[in-house]
C-alpha cells in the first residue's frame, strides 16, 4: 500500500507519517499542494490523505488535480473542522473525511477498505 500524505502542519504530517511507516505503510509526505502534484507526477500511489485547508492549493482543488494525474487514486480528507456542514461542502468523490485529531487505527482501517 503506497500512500501520499499532504498537510501544511509540518509536525503533524511528519509524525503521522512516521507512525504509519512503523505500521508497515509505504508513505511519502509533503507540506504543500504543489509538492504533492510534483510527487504524484513521478510516482504512483494507491491513496492520498489530504488536509482540506492549506495555503495555496487547498485539499479540494488538490483532489481534482491528483485525479487528473491518476483517476484511480483514492482520496481521504483530513479536516480541522468537525461539523457536518464542513463535510457536506467538500468533495462528493472523496472516499472519506476524518476529523483531526485522528485515530491512527481508524485511518489505516479506512485506507485498507478504500484500496481493497
Amino acid at each position, binding site marked *: 500500500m503506497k500512500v501520499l500524505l499532504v498537510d*501544511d*502542519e509540518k*509536525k*503533524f504530517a511528519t*509524525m*503521522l507519517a*512516521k*507512525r504509519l511507516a*512503523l505500521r508497515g505503510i509505504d508513505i511519502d509526505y509533503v507540506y504543500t499542494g504543489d509538492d504533492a502534484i510534483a510527487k504524484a507526477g513521478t510516482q504512483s500511489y494507491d491513496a492520498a490523505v489530504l488536509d482540506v*485547508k*492549506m*495555503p*495555496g492549493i*487547498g485539499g479540494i482543488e488538490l483532489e481534482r488535480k491528483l485525479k487528473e494525474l491518476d483517476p484511480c487514486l483514492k482520496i481521504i480528507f483530513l479536516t*480541522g*473542522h*468537525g461539523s457536518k456542514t464542513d463535510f457536506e461542502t467538500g468533495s462528493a468523490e472523496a472516499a472519506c473525511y476524518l*476529523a*483531526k*485529531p*485522528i485515530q*491512527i487505527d481508524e485511518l489505516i482501517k479506512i485506507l485498507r477498505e478504500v484500496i481493497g
Partner: protein
Amino acid sequence: MNSTIDFKDNDDLAFFGKVNASISHELKNILAIISEAAGLLQDLTDMAAKGQKIELEMLTTCSQDIVEEIQRGFATIKQMNTFSHSIDEPVKKVNLADVVDLMIALSKFLSFACTVRFDPLPEEPAVVSTCAFRLQNLIYRALVFAYESTGPDGQIGVAIHPQPNGGAQITFSGCGSNKAGKFASDKTKKIAASIGVDIREARDLQGFELIVPENAEAVSQH
C-alpha cells in the same frame, strides 16, 4: 422559536462566530499534533519494551513538539480570551497597536493569509476610545481584503500613525495597484461609519487607510 431568524445577517454575531470557528480550527490542529506526538511516544515505548532499538533523538523531538504545541495552545487561548472580552464594554479606551496585533494573530489562522509586516510601533501609544469589537471587525475585514488581494505568497504592510489632533491612521500597504481603491464593501463601510472611522485610498502605498477618531461618536446600531 422563530425558525426564520438568520443570525448571519447580524454582522457582529457573524464576525464573532467566524473568528471563534477559526480559533477552534487552530486549536484542533494543535491538539492533532500533540495527539500524534503522544502516539509516537507510545509507539517508541512499545518498541523499547519489545527490545527493539529506538532513536533517542525521536524521543527528544516528540517531547519538544509537545511543549511547543502546548505553548502555542496557551497563546491561542489567550488571544481567544482577549477577543471574547472585547464585547464586555460597548465603548472603551484601547491601544490600537494591541488591537491590530490581535487581529493579525487571529487572521493568520486563515489558510489564505499572507505575510504581514507590522511596522515598529509609534513611541507614543495610539489610544482611542471606541467600540473595540467593531474596530476589530473592521481591521479583520481589512486584513482579509489584503490577503485576498496578494495571495498567500505575498506580503502586506500594516502601520499605525498617531494624528496630531488625536486619533490615528492605520495604513494597509502592498495590496496591489489594481486593488488599492476597492476596499471596502457597503457592509464594511457601514461598520466603519458606526464607529466614526473614515476609509481612504492610499494609492501611493497600493493600499488604504483607516482614520480612527480619538473618540468614536455614538456607536449606532446597524
